[in-house]
């Protein structure tokens, strides 16, 4: 569980704490624009550290066909959110130091995975993972790479654009089976030995 205290920002309620799962918490910060640009970004904000974070994001969510750009944007978000307050800064800074100590930048995918597995319960790993899973897969370039088409209403939805264009299976029945009503109405069999069968202790 991660407790995020949001202070300031554009919200009408300026001081408010959210107790959220880590996934939702990171979304909050990015979409409600708590304006991290005002915070002094220091930790991780250099080419060497960023390169390590980019590698880590790619090792956590490896897609061979993805170019560097979405991973770089995600790494930037990981760094920005890792500077949200002093506790986060410490977490990020220690995490990066440990990566360096482990010579992480030079590890191949297999060895990287082994290392990440070792640290996966750390706050640092969880910060990188939970931020990345939201930011990477909410990236419009990634949507395109995965074939996802995003917003569709302004294009008239898919009613004339292939909502039913799957052609490798036959067209199925859409109406209910004529026996459905009788099936739903039928009394279920009640078995006397029900508790035995369910083996509840």
């Amino acid at each position, binding site marked *: 569980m991660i407790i995020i205290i949001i202070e300031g920002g554009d919200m009408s309620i300026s001081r408010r704490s959210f107790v959220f799962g880590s996934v939702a918490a990171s979304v909050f910060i990015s979409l409600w624009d708590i304006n991290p640009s005002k915070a002094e970004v220091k930790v991780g904000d250099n080419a060497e550290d960023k390169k390590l974070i980019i590698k880590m994001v790619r090792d956590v969510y490896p*897609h061979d066909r993805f170019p560097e750009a979405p991973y770089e944007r995600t790494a930037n978000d990981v760094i920005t959110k890792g500077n949200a307050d002093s506790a986060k800064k410490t977490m990020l800074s220690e995490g990066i130091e440990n990566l360096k100590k482990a010579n992480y930048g030079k590890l191949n995918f297999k060895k990287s995975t082994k290392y990440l597995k070792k640290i996966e319960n750390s706050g640092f790993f969880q910060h990188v993972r939970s931020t990345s899973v939201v930011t990477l897969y909410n990236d419009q370039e990634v949507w395109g790479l995965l074939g996802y088409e995003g917003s569709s209403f302004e294009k008239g939805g898919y009613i004339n654009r292939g909502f039913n264009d799957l052609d490798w299976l036959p067209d199925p029945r859409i109406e209910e089976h004529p026996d459905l009503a009788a099936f739903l109405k039928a009394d279920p069999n009640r078995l006397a030995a029900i508790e035995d069968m*369910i083996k509840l202790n």
Partner: protein
Amino acid sequence: MKKIDKKEKAVVIIGSGAGGGTMAYELTRAGIPCVCLEAGPFHKKEDYVNDEWGAFLQMAWLDARTTSGDWRVAKDFSGLPTWLCKAVGGTTTHWAGATPRFMDYEFKTKSTYGNLKGANLLDWPVTLKDMEPYYTRAEDAIGSTHRGGRAALPANNNYKVFAEGAKRVGYKFYATGPYGTNAEPYDGRPGSVQDGFNFQGDKNGSKWSTAKREIPRALETGLLDLRTHSHVTKITHNKEGLVDGVIYRDVDGNEQRQAAQVVIVSGNSIESPRLLLLSESSMFPNGLANSSGEVGRNYMRHLTGSMYARFEKPVKMWRGETMAGFCADEVKHNPKRGFVGGYYMETLALGPAFLSSFLDPGAWGREFTDMMDGYENIAGMWIVGEDMPQSNNRVTLNTDVKDQYGNPVPNVHFDEHKNDIAMRNYAYEKAEKLYESVGAIQTWRTPPYPSTHNLGTNRMSAKSKDGVVNKWGRSHDIKNLYIADGSVMTTGAAANPTLTITALSIRFSENVISQLKKGNI
């Protein structure tokens, strides 16, 4: 819009979703002026966005909450036990649209299933026969497809995979509904354009919600005083023990009081019991309407789980109506399967943004990205089954954590019953077979999401010692206090609950109207 004086003793409805919105509509149509206090804003169809996270932040109820128990949601989404909405229309703005009725025996599970260790089963004080006319009215209000002569939705890509798989494993009872989004124009709403953003409010306005139908029509009567951004924090009572007002925070956070002749609580299964508990007094030290001690107990959230399957060829599941695919073959109680009750299978699609977060919360690495990488080729279904009411699965006040108004937040405790686990595992295996029959190359057992089906925390009972409200939604203890939402469900059945909440609310409204006319309340 009607303005009702705050000092005037009014009929006050708390919430505007399937329960409260329906109440507001039925009562104002009967000539009864009402105040409806809704905690959220009034989004119109043009306000909705075709964006999963954006819509979530726009619509979801995000006030602080806590969780406990062995359910995985408590670990992965510890502050987000549910996925409910704070908006006019409540969670009908987010609902998908599946509208099955309960089956007859699902109103009498204690008689049907017998005594099950750890399960606090109870027969409902109403029967399917009592409910049938109200089900028909609710289906006509919602515009359920496959009912009342209304057309079926066409097969979308996700349904094609689902239905063919169902057929190949020997299932018969699959169809594209019943479903609460129009296939063809009905009741002033257009047919679906299959935009795939049904959960996000539906910009086309084809989906039924009380924000689309009941609230606007109640406003048209000139009898509804709808106050948005109005969060009720306490219900007050007089020395006779009758409720006489509600305290709420307005849009600016200022405390207001509305005098009340009748209070109808429709805040869903988390906020309704919480409000009753927050309204404790020296006369009612355990909270309002709680002489039974059942307020907040027997919280149910349906047995859920999802199965996603990856194929060699494209599916494009995100196109088209999200849940317009239904299979009933496993819904009948058949203890030979190793559990009581049953479940529906329903198509479900998520975009990459949500699939990545919910497919397997916390997962990372190559196996996970192999699945995500095949996003275009994924089909998905939701498993919705009856879960067991348990006395200790409950909503309580967590006095250690305060909300934005300084009130204790609700803690949602949930431990899974062995029956729930047995049914889910059975359902996963069956779903894997279904998708494998049409060529799945990878399948994924996705655990339950934060709950959208929230039931049973103010349950309906024949006897006052067993529950909180009677068969008319009227509290056993306080005659001018009603509850109309999913919290009154005695047991959960397998069916998606919105149709039943709507039908119950229509039924309850008749009692409110007749009691008011007789001068009894």
